[in-house]
């Protein structure tokens, strides 16, 4: 019987997820000989037309990484939804909005204005800003129109499974690939729609090697300010670590390297808004009962949105700032 078809696409993404896929090293050979990679623009020169030419539901599995922030992303997302049986939101950009979704803090114009006109290292004498359509001697060039608000894949199309992580760890990808091969080869039932693959149900603390005690925080500090104790929970040392409110699966690689968890694996299973939950948890362990002192301590939290919603702004309750 024909080899199942695999499609991998990268929308508003940094390409890290595609590299992570290659990071599964030898297993890429299993993928190659089990799947027929029909669409992987980052790796090989596929054309949109090829996809449009396929029948619907002909692609067995599509790994869609990257957020949706332009017409093109949206168009291809719809296209792949139509063409594939299983559509997976691969990586935190697709699943929760990721770093690109931090753009929701600003309007599109202010971004373009800063990037093309204000940025200190600019050399744009003509003060030109890229336009959706521009006339050139050869004719008319169109580039996809950027959206004002970055959306997650789930917010624009129907998504079957989510694989969090920025990028998802190679060993988790390998596990997912094996699972998929196992399902397709042995006809195992698909997991229920919407399950999160490549991660566990616990929080990052579960895999963190550091010793954890009762928390009593009197000051928040940035990681560069102190040399952290090697085997004591970072939060107890005053560093904001999103480990408790982040799904585990990454093996707590950042914490093992001495840096606090940024929450890239997204919200745990029972949580609806990762940032709000972290605020609730973190504020509760502030060690003071006097309002002024509490304000002084909270003032030391540098950039609440950037810290608590670094990867999940698009997926949060408020989704974007009202500017």
């Amino acid at each position: 019987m024909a080899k199942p078809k695999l499609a991998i696409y990268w929308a508003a993404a940094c390409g890290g997820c595609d590299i992570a896929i290659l990071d599964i090293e030898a297993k890429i050979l299993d993928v190659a000989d089990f799947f027929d990679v029909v669409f992987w623009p980052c790796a090989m020169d596929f054309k949109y037309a090829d996809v449009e030419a396929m029948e619907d539901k002909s692609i067995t599995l599509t790994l869609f990484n990257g957020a949706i922030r332009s017409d093109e992303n949206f168009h291809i997302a719809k296209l792949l939804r139509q063409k594939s049986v299983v559509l997976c939101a691969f990586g935190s950009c697709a699943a929760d909005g990721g770093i690109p979704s931090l753009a929701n803090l600003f309007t599109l114009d202010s971004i373009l204005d800063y990037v093309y006109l204000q940025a200190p290292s600019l050399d744009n004498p003509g003060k030109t800003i890229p336009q959706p359509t521009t006339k050139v001697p050869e004719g008319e060039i169109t580039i996809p129109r950027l959206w004002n608000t970055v959306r997650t894949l789930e917010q624009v199309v129907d998504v079957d499974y989510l694989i969090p992580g920025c990028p998802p760890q190679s060993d988790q990808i390998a596990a997912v690939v094996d699972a998929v091969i196992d399902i397709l080869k042995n006809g195992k039932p698909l997991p229920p729609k919407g399950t999160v693959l490549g991660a566990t149900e616990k929080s990052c603390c579960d895999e963190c090697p550091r010793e954890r005690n009762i928390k009593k925080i009197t000051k928040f500090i940035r990681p560069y300010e102190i040399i952290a104790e090697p085997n004591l929970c970072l939060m107890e040392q005053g560093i904001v670590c999103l480990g408790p409110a982040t799904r585990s699966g990454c093996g707590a690689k950042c914490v093992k390297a001495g840096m606090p968890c940024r929450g890239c694996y997204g919200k745990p299973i029972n949580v609806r808004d990762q940032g709000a939950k972290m605020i609730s948890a973190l504020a509760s362990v502030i060690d003071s009962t006097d309002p002024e002192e509490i304000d002084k301590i909270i003032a030391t939290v540098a950039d609440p949105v950037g810290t608590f919603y670094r990867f999940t702004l698009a997926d949060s309750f408020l989704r974007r700032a009202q500017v």
Partner: protein
Amino acid sequence: MSFEPKILGILCNWCSYTGADLAGTARMKYPANMRSVRVMCSGRVDPGFILNALRSGADGVLICGCHPGDCHYVEGNYKCMRRIPLTKKLLADMGIDPRRLRLEWVSASEGARFQSVVTGFTEEIRTLGPLELRELNFDAEHPAGTAQEISAAAS
């Protein structure tokens, strides 16, 4: 008619809810804009409730708890006292006026105080006007483009 703000009140069962009940039994008038939800202690209030309330159309959120030291659960209100300022700071960064979120201590016997708090808060939200979160949900037909298009879509 002028803009009628929608306010969500989260009241702790032992003090503010009983205070509200006292205000009610004492026939004290206060605007009906506030819709109240009862929780066992102000410590139960999760900032997620506040964000979800704003997202669901609330123009202002009022949290009431027992006076510090009087909490039926000894320290519950202290936790709330710590979470609200951090949530206010988040709202400010998200472009939402922090005054739309207010924390007040109302004890079981302060019916009058409850009345004045609610009335005051309602007027304040009325001056702030409706919240109207822009581009909250995704609209498949015309995904918003440049600023002009957004404003056009919004109106």
